[in-house]
């Protein structure tokens, strides 16, 4: 039961924040390339999902899973994208991501007059609160499953 890592992207595709807790295998490419790959993949998959949908969609793309991990996705109306990779035991992290947005991002970044969200998020308070929140999640354990 664990959270592997978390990305926050803005609406243009720049990665504002990234941190990892339990990542066992690196991607083999630089971080910049990894962020671009992640954003591009999400963009394509959201477009695919909306085109393939046989019904009108309410929320759009929510998550995907492989045999080893599950990726959860949450997008705010302002285009901010939260991406979290967990192991397979976490079925739905949407509320978690919503909480991260409304209680951590809005509180410590948006309301901070010194934080310009166009570049990477520099707030130490945000980082420490986010880290504490993730570690306190019921499905987080330091020993990866």
């Amino acid at each position, binding site marked *: 039961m664990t959270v592997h890592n978390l990305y926050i992207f803005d609406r243009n595709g720049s990665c504002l924040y990234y941190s990892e807790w339990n990542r066992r295998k690196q991607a083999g490419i630089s971080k910049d390339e990894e962020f671009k790959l992640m954003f591009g993949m999400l963009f394509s998959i959201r477009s695919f999902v909306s085109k393939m949908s046989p019904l009108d*969609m309410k929320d759009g793309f929510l998550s995907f899973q492989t045999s080893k991990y599950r990726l959860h996705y949450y997008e705010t109306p302002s285009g901010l994208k939260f991406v979290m990779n967990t192991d397979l035991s976490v079925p739905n992290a949407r509320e978690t991501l919503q909480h991260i947005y409304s209680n951590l991002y809005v509180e410590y970044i948006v309301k901070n007059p010194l934080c310009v969200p166009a570049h990477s998020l520099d707030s130490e308070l945000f980082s420490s609160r986010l880290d504490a929140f993730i570690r306190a999640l019921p499905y987080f354990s330091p020993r990866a499953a």
Partner: protein
Amino acid sequence: MVIFSVYVVNKAGGLIYQYDNYVPRAEAEKTFSYPLDLVLKHHDEKVIVSFGQRDGIRGIKFIVLADPRQSGIDALLRKIYEIYSDFALKNPFYSLEMPIRCELFDQNLKGALEIAEKAGNFGAGS
């Protein structure tokens, strides 16, 4: 209605089989006079897309679109692969990577979808 479609994509990315299992909502034409007497209803259905890559050497991809409440999609994907190998690969008139035009494949696929819908359906709407 709960399993919407099945697609089979070959190694090169071409679509070699497609089956749609849903009835599109009837188009209705009606002239209105202001104020409108329609009320908009909130749609609650989300759709999941399940991919399966069976036999990675050959690169064939099976895609099933289904209601998120449908369970047993993994088993269904395996079953579709079984049907593919039984009725397409073993068919001497079928060549690999080409569109699948085998009647037995169609029939068995529809049968498998019906079984999956009846067996794995928890509280799905129409």
